């Protein structure tokens, strides 16, 4: 019988049925961070339980670490240092590999896992973090869980799962200039809702997906959780293997025939299928307080729930472009990799951000991304334009109680969540691609990045 990529990985990992009718699924990798992983490690120690195979469990400090240069264990989050020191001690006790605050390879969990070759095609990988779906870009089954489940996975090497349904989302055709993977995923969520993927594993496919580089594929899969899917995934191809070859924890050669079978059979049937014309996608920007409240940057705000209009301070019928902003943020596991920084820097080269922008930050996804960007001189472009250049971490992707702005401030952000209060009490967040963030920072208002690009073409 024809199988989907998901079916194949599921069958490969099915250890045994449980008496209750679920399946014990083997977990190949667990990745923790100090925010939610500490709770799992703590409970495990309290219960006198042990990690089954510590060599396959990793942890990183990324969520509440300071991102200002010269950082240590201090953090702006109240009580935050305890999370860092407790996680460090618990990792040592449990014998698991930790990427510590100032380690060479520190970075956001979903950025460093592929960088280190920890995620691989065909593996199961879990982390107590909803954006674990990012790593599905490598053809792995990678999904977010809670802290109790993380403890379960570490102790038993498995999780108890009901088999999810499958969905294929095809992006046919080619993206136009200035349109990115971020705009693809926002288009899907805007069209099918923040609950549109519930109960499903989503496989992304089609010409526009194959054309994406690995970093852009991660951006696409990153927001599968904003679609309420269990996870997103993309079948591995030559680009995937090329990206991973030679990475620290990856095999040196991907020559086992098993790798070649990691694709959905041509006649495989998905429980649901969605097709999107990639050539019709425009740069997107959110207007409200859910990722589904997103429109083309050239569009007009529709009538949404009253609470969303009230919180965001924008009325239906207004054009989104031209909305003044106070803060610009480039970072997060959605858009903080080297290609994201390169594209934003292209727009910012030789430009200054508008004087009305109170804060503009670039936070690279990992210290390795940071080094690469510095080798290319990108940091000079950002700082000359008026952005601050930071160490790696989650930073302003969410508000941990430290660094923040006055309530009512409006941000344009390359992150994934525009929830009420996500970036701080009363903060109004507009999510978009790094290009749109860069272009908007120059103007001081939400701006179509294609205008900035046309402008660039004109002067050069």
């Amino acid at each position, binding site marked *: 019988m024809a199988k989907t990529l998901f079916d194949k990985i599921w069958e490969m990992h099915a250890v*045994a049925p449980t008496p*209750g009718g679920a399946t014990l699924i083997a977990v190949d990798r667990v990745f923790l961070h100090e925010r939610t992983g500490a*709770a799992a490690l703590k409970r495990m120690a309290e219960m006198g339980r042990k990690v089954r195979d510590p*060599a396959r469990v990793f942890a990183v400090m990324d969520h509440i670490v300071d991102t200002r240069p010269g950082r240590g264990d201090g953090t702006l989050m109240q009580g935050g240092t305890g999370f860092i020191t407790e996680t460090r001690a618990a990792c040592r006790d449990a014998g698991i590999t930790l990427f510590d605050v100032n380690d060479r390879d520190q970075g956001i969990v979903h950025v460093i896992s592929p960088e280190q070759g920890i995620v691989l095609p065909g593996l199961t990988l879990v982390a107590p973090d909803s954006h674990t779906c990012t790593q599905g870009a490598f053809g792995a089954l990678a999904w977010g869980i809670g802290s109790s489940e993380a403890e379960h996975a570490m102790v038993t090497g498995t999780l108890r799962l009901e088999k999810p349904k499958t969905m294929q989302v095809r992006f046919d055709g080619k993206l136009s200039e200035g349109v990115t993977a971020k705009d693809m995923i926002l288009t899907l969520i805007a069209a099918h809702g*923040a*609950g549109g993927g*519930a109960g499903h594993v989503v496989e992304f496919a089609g010409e526009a997906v194959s054309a994406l580089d690995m970093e852009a594929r991660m951006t696409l899969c990153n927001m599968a959780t904003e679609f309420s899917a269990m996870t997103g995934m993309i079948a591995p191809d030559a680009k995937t293997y090329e990206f991973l070859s030679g990475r620290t924890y990856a095999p040196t050669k991907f020559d086992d025939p098993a790798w070649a079978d990691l694709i959905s059979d041509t006649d495989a049937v998905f429980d649901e299928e969605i097709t999107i014309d990639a050539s019709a996608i425009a740069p997107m920007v959110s207007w409200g307080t859910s990722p589904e409240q997103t429109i083309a940057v050239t569009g007009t705000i529709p009538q949404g729930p009253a609470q969303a209009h009230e919180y965001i301070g924008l009325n239906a019928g207004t054009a989104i472009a031209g909305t003044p902003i106070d803060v610009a943020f480039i970072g997060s596991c959605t858009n903080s990799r080297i290609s994201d920084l390169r594209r934003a820097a292209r727009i910012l080269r030789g430009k200054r951000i508008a004087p009305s922008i109170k804060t503009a930050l670039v936070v690279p996804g990992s210290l390795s991304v940071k080094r690469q960007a510095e080798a290319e001189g990108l940091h000079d472009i950002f700082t000359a334009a008026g952005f601050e250049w930071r160490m790696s971490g989650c930073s302003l992707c*969410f508000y941990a109680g430290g660094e923040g702005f006055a309530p009512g401030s409006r941000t344009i952000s390359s992150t994934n969540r525009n929830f009420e209060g996500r970036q701080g009490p009363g903060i109004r967040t507009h999510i978009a691609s790094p290009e749109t963030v860069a272009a908007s920072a120059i103007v001081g208002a939400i701006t179509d990045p294609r205008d900035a690009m046309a402008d660039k073409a004109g002067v050069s």
Partner: protein
Amino acid sequence: MTPFPNTLTSAAAPLMRDNIDTDTIIPSREMRSTGRDGLADGMFAPWRYDDADARIENPQFVLNQPAFRSATILLSGANFGCGSSREHAVWALAEWGIKAIIAESFAPIFHGNCIRNGILPITLPRDVIDGIAPGPVTIDLSAQSVIGGGASHAFDIDAEAKQMLMKGLDAIDLTMEQDRAIGSWTMADRAARPWVYLAKAG
């Protein structure tokens, strides 16, 4: 974990919005230690307090209203518990005393976290939820029914989740009963997929 009661009767507090996220249920700044307790105070802080720092209550917020202060059942719209995987959201609700949430749909990670912590997540159509508000509502887990608004409504729950809630089982203990199966599966897998198994951590 304490088993779910045979029948649960309570006022049902309506929080009838879609997409209520875990950042709202427990904001990150309210998660002040690596433990699982002390979270109820920060539950729904952005809505529940007019001034969250001073803990000055917003009298409009449903759980601050006398009729719902001790409600153990919450009602909500679609995609409840979306966003961050933080289990702290469920720990906060459980500590406050919430035992069941009836919503149009749930975000998957939140749904799993509920089961692991003794909270029963029930999915029902929106018109049924509107019809049973504001309670009293009675939930019979073994019969899989919700009685409220003068009618009885059947709900679905998978067999394993039902059993875990009814008996208050710990998932890890349960899985360890299949430890031998896991061990022999792993041995065979080690031979089939050697690259999965990394050298001992440094």
